[in-house]
């Protein structure tokens, strides 16, 4: 039996970060890629989302500790610090357009995949 792995693309490389099974649906973890921190989530349908871990409103690396949910049809994560909500597919903040430092309030979005693809032939 092969474990399904989660991979995030860092530069030109897909980096395996953890086993898919170790992700709790509806929650996230933080992943360190070089100097950068990525917040990785598995939603309740099983889909993966990876965005920057830094909360633009507090500057703290905490997005991975936020709660997942939906706003209308959009999958979102709420920052645990001051509760602003971000669209997981685009990284944009749905509550406030700019961060306190004047930059657009947007989380970088990271490409993420499973290998072998979840539900694919190697599935246990």
């Amino acid at each position, binding site marked *: 039996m092969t474990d399904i792995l989660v991979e995030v693309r860092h530069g030109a490389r897909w*980096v395996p*970060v*953890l086993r898919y099974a*170790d992700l*709790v*649906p*509806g*929650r996230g*973890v*933080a*992943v*360190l890629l070089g100097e950068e*921190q990525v917040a*990785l989530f598995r*939603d*309740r349908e099983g889909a993966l989302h990876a965005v920057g871990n*830094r909360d633009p409103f*507090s*500057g*703290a*690396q*905490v997005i991975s*500790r*936020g*709660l*997942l*949910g*939906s*706003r*209308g049809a959009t*999958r*979102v994560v*709420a920052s*645990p*610090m001051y*509760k602003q*909500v971000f669209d997981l597919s685009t990284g944009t903040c749905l509550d406030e357009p700019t961060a306190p*430092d004047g930059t657009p309030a947007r989380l970088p979005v990271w490409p993420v995949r499973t290998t072998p693809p979840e539900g694919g032939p190697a599935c246990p």
Partner: protein
Amino acid sequence: MTAPTTRPPKELVLVGHGMVGQRFLEALYEQPGAGAWHVTVLAEEPRPAYDRVHLTSWFSGTTAEELSLVSDKFMERHGIALHLGDPATAVDRNTRTVTSASGRVLRYDALVLATGSYPFVPPVPGHDTPGCHVYRTLEDVRAIRAEAAQARTGIVVGGGLLGLEAAGALRALGLDTHVVEFAPRLMALQVDEGGGAVLRRKIEELGVRVHTGAGTSAVEAGPDGRVRAARLSDGTELPADLVVFSAGVRARDQLARDCGLPVGERGGITVDTACRTADPRVWAIGECAQAADGRVYGLVAPGYAMAETAARRLCRGEAEFTGADLSTKLKLLGVDVASFGDPHGTAEGALDVTFTDSRSGVYKKLVIGTDGSLLGGVLVGDTEAYGVLRPLALAGQPLTVPPEQLVLPAAQGGDVTPRLPDKAVLCSCHNVTGGAVRAAVREQGLTGIAEVKKCTKAGTGCGSCLKTLSTVVRDELAASGTEVSRDLCEHFAHTRAELYEIVRVRGITDFTTLVDSHGTGDGCDVCKPVVASILASLGNGHVLDGEQAALQDTNDHHLANLQRNGSYSVVPRVPGGEITPEKLIVIGEVARDFGLYTKITGGQRIDLFGARVDQLPAVWRRLVDAGFESGHAYGKSLRTVKSCVGQTWCRYGVQDSTSLAIELELRYRGLRAPHKLKSAVSGCARECAEARSKDFGIIATSAGWNLYVGGNGGTTPRHADLLATDLDKATLIRTIDRFLMFYIRTADRLERTAPWLERLEGGLDHLRAVVLEDALGIAADLDAQMARHVSGYADEWAAVLDDPDRLRRFTSFANAPDVPDPTVTFVPERDQIRPARPGENGRPLRELVLVPAQGAGR
């Protein structure tokens, strides 16, 4: 820049700092031109104005401070010179000066008399025998209570509103109580014969003996020179140790008489519709004045209206006081009584509609005019309808429903509530009409009672209009389509209380089932923690188990409090604030070894700040090994039960408050609730533990424990209400159990007990009925649920440490479990750490504190 210190050009002297005097000052400073006046107040009483209307509540624990009507700094802010205990003794209108007892001579450009009234004591032989009292000031009630301790029997002379209030107080002090009333019935001014009869029966049921149609002809002294008995006009002799005269009041108009101002035939300084006396520089307001309609009003609402009139006029505004309505609603000795409009049906052709049920002690009478309009009425035993009927009567419009329906009990087809007309005064204390409330809701976009109270002042006086106010506000919101939805969020069209019932009744144990069957979408950061809390309240195991882990906010998820730089704080439980030196040392050692910042919290325990997520288990390993448990500083659950040192050490303590606090904290620890819960226990009435600012607070009495509920510090402070007195410990605990479980069942999301209690229909009385008398028949359920909580409690942190699966969540990085988060940085401050600010060159904990703290390599 230096502040301008010039004194306002014109001198205003206010004589009397009672309820109306204070309202006058407030109204004055609400006027744009108030800055022209420099105000000096001469007050006879030794303290600033207080709420005389609620004087009787002093006997049941309301303190003098709570009765005070003067907010902190009010006098200072407005530069008012207040001279307490220094009454005015003379007015010279030629020199325009007022002289005070201490010899002050104050010049005035305007003089406002607000001297109130004095209690009338019939000049019967022996009326000044020691043991005779009146009932008007805080000093009076203090004296009554002091003497009641040695007395067995008390007589109240006068069966009016005040007399019955005094009788209630004597009864509560444990005296055999008699009321002697000259008129053929009690409260002759307000109620008619039928109402008087029902009232009498109800009051006698409470053990107060009523003698009507009899005057007091003499008070007799015993050999010790103190009151021994009272003799009635019908020859009866009533033994008595204490007599309270409450035979009406007389306007205090002597100052005016002495300086030649006209007064009314039966007393009261004559004023015009502007509240001005015959001398244009002298004004009179409140109970000392005879209004333009020839009446001397003995109620506070007309006095307030006069105060506002005078204040406006003094600032060149328009206002008139032409008369007021004498409606009253009271709860006397537990009996509701109300009268409004013209209760005696004196108008020509007026008809009565009455309903009497002697068994349940309900009497209702409506007076209907020839045109079908409601003129007035009397309600005894059930005053539900007062809030709507009184304004209807005052509006004088024809009724839209048959009057019988307004007096019949709901079960018999009654209780159709007519709409309150816009013109009708809804809140008479502040003279706010139904229309004004509706306009405020509509035009200012207000969405709740609290906002409406703040903006219109309605409901902030005696409180008797609150129920009607909330109906009007709710209906208006509904009508304008902007009804504040109580839905939890877009995923659940239910309130928290409804969800709680759904989860409880259906036995649901996970979020997915709940959102799929009763909601939509994936949920969010609002509904998920709420459901997590409901599941936890209903005892669904560890808060990090299974799907519950995915519902918890970060604080609950990491069992610690998130700080601004992404680190966490750790608060071990210190029940009741009591801690051994050994345990204190352990906390110190843990903090030192991990380099954490320590602080004594406002909750009598110690907070350790700056731990990274990956350090939490190691910190807790040390704490748990030393016998500490989670303090739930992160949860919407019991925080602390603060204690004072109590009887064990304190020379004033009357019970062991520390032991009780510890017992309560251990009992309710871990109990998840709609919001956090705080408690405290004080060992005596000095209240060093500040129990009355807590969700449930306990104050020791020599006979047991007084339980207060619904207190709050924080954003909207509120003193807790007295729920029950002199409870023994078992009853106390049972009552708290039920109170907490009832709150958990019915409160909204993030609604602390204070706003919950304010919102609870029926208020404190209803709560009492539920938790003390089991009015809803749910007490056994609530008890069982608390029993389950108590027996099911286990320390959350110990459970995490025992479980490798749960422990795995406490890493900074899933792909690098051993790497600490390099972005969590600190700088030193006062020999400890604090989070680095943006742009500051902070360093990770290990490098920064641990090395220098161990003294190595400096």
